[in-house]
């Protein structure tokens, strides 16, 4: 099965209109998202995530490289008929009501009027906008607009869902609803390409992670594999002599001092040697257990590594 999304050596440069200056938004970015995968697309602000998504949707064009969506070039109507899209800072025609907007999008999607007539109330109920059908979108809160955005993205029962910050502006209940919708889509074998800063939520359902920073791809792979690679060992001790602190720091271990004692977070490869040295130095090792790193830890580590001078 061909990948749902494919970027091959994509470079995008934003030129300044009035000078020779410019910014490289994407530098030789290559990755693939397999069909049926939920892919978390991460990066700090200004990393190039939205540029990637815009290139993917055909809103802008890469200076070099190739992008393929569901086997077609970006902007191809055959691909777009199977895509649902929620842009960042979603904007709608403010004078429309939710049902009118969804009818408009159903017409654009080429949906049969009768099918759209059945689907629209279902979607409105799904995103918890019942009771607001007569209210103009201009009067909606940001969270309501975001919910409506998700409803319009689901309108054509898409094979691929591209979501740029879908939970921004949503309250905890709204975020939970979106999470449930995404989990349901995942179980139906849909591909979800999702950009978000809410890493704890992404960790619950993302199968694949792509991290970019300053326009460059810095990490890509299955989430379980990436988190497994970043696992650490916590060692609790009652005291820590200076020479031991120096040794541990040299080997990249983190030392946290709290009311319950001292916690050392070390690489599993260092575990044995560290404990032996601690015992030898007269420290009492009170506990030792594995610590699985979170997506947030991974993200922060990858981004800080990328920022270090080469």
């Amino acid at each position: 099965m061909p990948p749902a999304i494919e970027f091959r050596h994509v470079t995008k440069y934003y030129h300044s209109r009035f000078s020779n200056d410019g910014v490289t938004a994407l530098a030789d970015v290559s990755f693939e998202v397999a069909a049926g995968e939920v892919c978390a697309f991460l990066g700090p602000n200004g990393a190039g995530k939205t540029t990637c998504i815009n290139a993917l949707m055909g809103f802008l064009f890469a200076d070099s490289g190739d992008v393929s969506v569901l086997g077609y070039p970006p902007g191809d109507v055959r691909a777009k008929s199977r895509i649902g899209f929620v842009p960042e800072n979603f904007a709608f025609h403010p004078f429309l009501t939710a049902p009118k907007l969804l009818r408009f999008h159903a017409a654009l999607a080429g949906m049969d009027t009768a099918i759209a007539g059945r689907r629209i109330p279902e979607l409105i109920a799904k995103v918890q906008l019942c009771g607001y059908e007569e209210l103009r979108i201009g009067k909606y809160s940001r969270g309501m607009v975001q919910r409506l955005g998700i409803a319009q993205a689901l309108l054509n029962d898409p094979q691929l869902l591209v979501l740029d910050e879908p939970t921004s502006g949503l309250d905890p209940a709204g975020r939970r609803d979106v999470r449930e919708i995404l989990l349901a889509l995942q179980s139906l074998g849909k591909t979800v390409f999702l950009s978000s800063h809410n890493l704890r939520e992404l960790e619950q359902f993302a199968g694949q992670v792509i991290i970019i920073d300053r326009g460059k791809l810095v990490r890509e792979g299955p989430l379980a594999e990436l988190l497994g690679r970043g696992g650490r060992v916590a060692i609790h001790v009652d005291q820590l002599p200076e020479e031991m602190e120096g040794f541990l720091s040299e080997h990249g271990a983190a030392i946290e001092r709290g009311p319950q004692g001292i916690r050392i977070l070390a690489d599993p490869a260092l575990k044995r040697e560290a404990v032996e040295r601690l015992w030898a130095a007269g420290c009492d090792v009170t506990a030792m257990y594995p610590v699985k790193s979170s997506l947030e830890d991974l993200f922060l580590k990858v981004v800080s590594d990328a920022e270090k001078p080469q």
Partner: protein
Amino acid sequence: MRIRAIALLTFSGFLRNKLMILFLALFAIVVLLMMTPLMVMRSQSGAPGLPHTESMAPGMIGGIMSLLSGFGSLLAAWAAADAVWSDIRSGTILAVLARPIERREFLLGKFLGVQLLMGCYVAMMLALSYLLAAIGGGHIHPAPWLLIVYPLVRYALYSGLAMLLATVLHPVISFAIMLVIMVLESIVVPGHPVWFLPDWLRSALFAVLPSPNLLSETRFLTLTEASLKQTSALDHLTALAYGLDWAVVFFLLAALLFHRRSVLRD
């Protein structure tokens, strides 16, 4: 279906555009003020020492209709320049272009939305011309289709050009260029020398710019039955085909340029 949906939404957007409503309201006031002398003349018709309404009305009606017609050209240019740009500015274009729709279809929907607006404007102009004729006691053209088709073609031409400019330039700049073009084409008419334009440039501009005179419906407003007979169907056809030709070329060029441009707020 897709193009119709975009055209109708564009038209609805225009009807709710506050700037447009304000502008139209101000313009309606100006027209009403211009109509006042006509109504005064009508009420005092037959009084000793006053000219008959019939003798002055055609000139006044012609003036009002020329003003309305010119304003229509401006409205067509502004609406077309803003139609796509406002969607880009607000970001609403992203959700629309994410749908299975070609960019040229989107642009065509926008263009037709502008033509719907101008259709309403022309209908309003036609109604006003009948009203003015009734007040002034004049005769309206016996073939009202001329009063509908000519302005529609002219507005299609202007909106096509404005849309073309707005695909590459900011709409305010596009509108300013349209204003310059409208002024230029009104002063390069043969037989009206302009001191600051050499003859060769004036002739060249007249050949290149879309001529408002050829497509002007105002020349038909004051026509008599006799002069109407002098205008053959072929003349009408040639003039309208000329205008439509320009409009189609401008639209196709706009679609070509829009095909590869970014639709993001820069």
